[in-house]
């Protein structure tokens, strides 16, 4: 497999910020197909990559390449056809307790009959945290996403961006080791998108979370990532794994203006177009 191609000259100066930290999420030879016999459809042929603790990894690829399928496999929602995925070395068999998900379509991921606060509380109920701990987690999660005042609002009373913030707050309050997001900012406007991207970076900073983002937006992938996993072809394989490094902290203005940013996005764009 055309795995890591760290030798690409322009990225020779990356510092290994995460390689000395343990591997949190590992995917090895993952394959997924639907149906059987004649109607069998192979979506993913062979994917392998590793995400270290505290790292942000973006999975990019042309649309229809099976990114969402991969995510659902990682989240334990779909069984694998072959290979394995593991968190901290433990194979993922069902939805792992250490993982939280943010879905692409916020309108289909928040319960419209629950307020923002109740939605965030939903996955905490069975954890039996005790009222004070639970309340402080809820307050904190709402605070972090900037919705401290909107806890009693229903999702349909909030804008799209705010709804996605609620979904992120729900994931945060769950305190996962790994946060997995499926095209999380695809259906919000550009301004909100920048804000949410920065929120994502800040969360990693504050909680030392490992974050996996599936996106089709190359700029977003380059901006967020420590590592970009480019997948392509049908059925999907890893085209390239690309480490990304910019001066920290990143900012929408300075980071995006770096020549290295432009180089990286051009490189990824080429990869995706070849992979089509």
């Amino acid at each position, binding site marked *: 497999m055309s795995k890591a191609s760290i030798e690409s000259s322009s990225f020779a100066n990356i510092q290994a910020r995460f390689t000395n930290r343990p591997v949190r999420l590992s995917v090895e030879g993952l394959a997924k197909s639907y149906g059987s016999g004649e109607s069998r459809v192979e979506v993913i042929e062979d994917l392998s990559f590793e995400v270290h603790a505290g790292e942000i990894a973006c999975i990019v690829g042309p649309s229809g390449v099976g990114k969402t399928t991969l995510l659902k496999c990682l989240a334990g929602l779909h069984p694998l056809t072959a290979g394995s995925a593991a968190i901290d070395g433990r194979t993922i068999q069902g939805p792992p307790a250490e993982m939280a998900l943010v*879905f692409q379509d916020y309108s289909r991921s928040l319960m419209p009959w629950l307020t923002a606060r109740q939605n965030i509380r939903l996955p905490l109920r069975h954890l039996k945290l005790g009222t004070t701990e639970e309340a402080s987690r809820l307050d904190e999660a709402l605070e972090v996403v900037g919705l401290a005042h909107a806890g009693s609002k229903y999702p349909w009373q909030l804008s799209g961006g705010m709804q996605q913030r609620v979904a992120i707050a729900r994931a945060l309050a769950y305190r996962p080791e790994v946060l997995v997001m499926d095209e999380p900012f695809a259906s919000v406007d550009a301004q909100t998108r920048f804000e949410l991207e920065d929120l994502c970076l800040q969360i990693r900073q504050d909680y030392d979370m490992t974050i996996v983002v599936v996106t089709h937006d190359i700029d977003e992938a380059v901006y967020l990532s420590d590592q970009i996993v480019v997948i392509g072809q049908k059925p999907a394989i890893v085209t390239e794994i690309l480490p990304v490094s910019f001066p920290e902290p990143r900012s929408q203005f300075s980071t995006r203006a770096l020549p290295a940013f432009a180089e990286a996005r051009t490189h990824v764009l080429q990869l995706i177009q070849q992979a089509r």
Partner: protein
Amino acid sequence: MRVLLATDTTSNKRQRGIPRRALHICLEIGVPIVLLAAWFISSQRSSNPFFPPLAEILNRFHELWLFDHLHSDVVPSMSNLVLGFAIAVLLGVIGGVLLALMRPIAWLADPLIHFWRAVPPVALVPIFVATLGYGNETRLVSIVVAAVFPTLIATVDGLRSVDSGLRDVGRAYNLTFSERLLVVNLPAASPMIMAGVQISLQSAFVVMIASEMMGTSTGIGAMTLLAQQSYASADMWAGILLLGTIGYAANALFEMARARILSWYFKAQKQGAAS
């Protein structure tokens, strides 16, 4: 089942001036009053045996239902309706949940459910009378059987059509079975379930009357039919008025309850329509 909740047909978006609105309110209240008055006056000296004066009908209404037959006839009818409806909704929802959860059982039950729902529920009343006798149980059982199917089918359909996104949230966050059922799936299905429950209420009401029209002499339905058969037309009209009022009131109460239970749904829909 499509949830066509024919809510307010009058809500048109165009802005109207205040006098226009006042006129409409006058129309809404005025027309029924005028019609009732017209009925009252035109029937005043009626000698038509079928259409007695409204004054006489109201008089009989007062004599019969307030409160002579209240205890002997109105209360039994109403308690059958309420009890039968409540049991049917409970059974319908529980049965619907079981059928939605256990596919093989649903496959087994599907053909039978679809056949029995197609049978006009009133046609079953004679069978219950024959098997269970003329007692009150017969009436109750008839109501339950007639009213259970709409709720049952709506619950199964509602649960089956819960958005896969919401389901995924429930699974991804490791919600327990009861959380997924009570906090995710049932609320998501509730608009559809409530549409079924409303049909159940109507069926229960029809069969309440029908079961009283078969061979018993107690209950509002029985009294109304007996009045007709003995050409006591004012009594019959009084019965019709009472039944009509009960039918209307039961539905109005239901819609109030639904507006409360599904307030999130109606508000979200309004929000969606506005944007």
